[in-house]
């Protein structure tokens, strides 16, 4: 069922949409959105379930560290974030899948 995204979802989508092709890490997203890990991770899981977010293990930039879980928007996620970025027509609310 479609519904309007929460402010937290909106914040995450906007943060990811700011650098659409870059892989982002959980802790960086926390800093950027101001969300706590307890809110951010369930959100990322849900966006991933909805096919709006792709997650991948990326090699760490720091030598000798294990790969980190990184995130970026899928094509579908980019369109959703793009729709959110545009002001909605009067009386209409942008909805997520």
């Amino acid at each position, binding site marked *: 069922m479609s*519904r309007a995204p*929460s402010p937290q979802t909106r914040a995450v989508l906007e943060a990811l949409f700011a650098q659409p092709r870059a892989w982002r*890490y959980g802790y960086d997203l926390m800093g950027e959105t101001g969300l706590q890990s307890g809110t951010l*991770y369930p959100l990322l899981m849900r966006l991933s379930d909805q096919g709006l977010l792709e997650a991948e293990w990326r090699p760490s930039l720091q030598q000798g560290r294990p790969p*980190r879980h990184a995130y970026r928007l899928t094509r579908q996620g980019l369109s959703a974030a793009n729709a959110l970025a545009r002001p909605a027509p009067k009386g209409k609310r942008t909805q997520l899948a």
Partner: protein
Amino acid sequence: MISISHRLAARLIEHAGRIMPPSRRQWAQAMAIELDHIPGGLAALAFALGCAQAGYTQKIVAMNLFANIIRWTLAAMTAAWAGSLVVLISFTAIIKSAPGAIAADPGSHGERANTLHLIQIYPLWELVPIALITVLLIAGAVQLVRRRGMALTLIALGVTAATVLRLIDLRLTGYKGISSDAPMGFLVELLIPLLCLGPVWWLSRQAPDLKVCT
């Protein structure tokens, strides 16, 4: 050297990983690795506490799925019960409208003769409460699917009415209950529908209206 708070944070995330459903384990692993990149003990601890909260959230989401399975199963069972009552009403009405029916009509088997006898002595007025019970059960099943709290009230009313009617039926001459041959059969027959109300009550209390953070 790893600080105490980092060690405690690692333990918390490990715990989060254990409580998360198996499909979410890679997320717990992601959290654990992310912890290595957090400077400062307090920040790490705050991060880990959030991860534990996320773990419990996922656990609750999984429970919600389980509750949904129970909800649909109970709704299907209630609807099936209502369906069987519709068949019972129709069958009884047909038999009663043909007073000349004999045991050979539905079949020559002894049990069928008993069934025919039961239907013939069954008071016609009882079809009205049975129809009412059917309506209550159908409405209860629909409300259960729609996650409405009143499902419990409707199903409870249906079960109670069915139980009262079952007690009234006892006075019928020659009536044998389904489980009358089994020891304590009648008690079991009454208890089963009442016990079914337990999961319905539980569902109406917590799971159907459970909201997960969006």
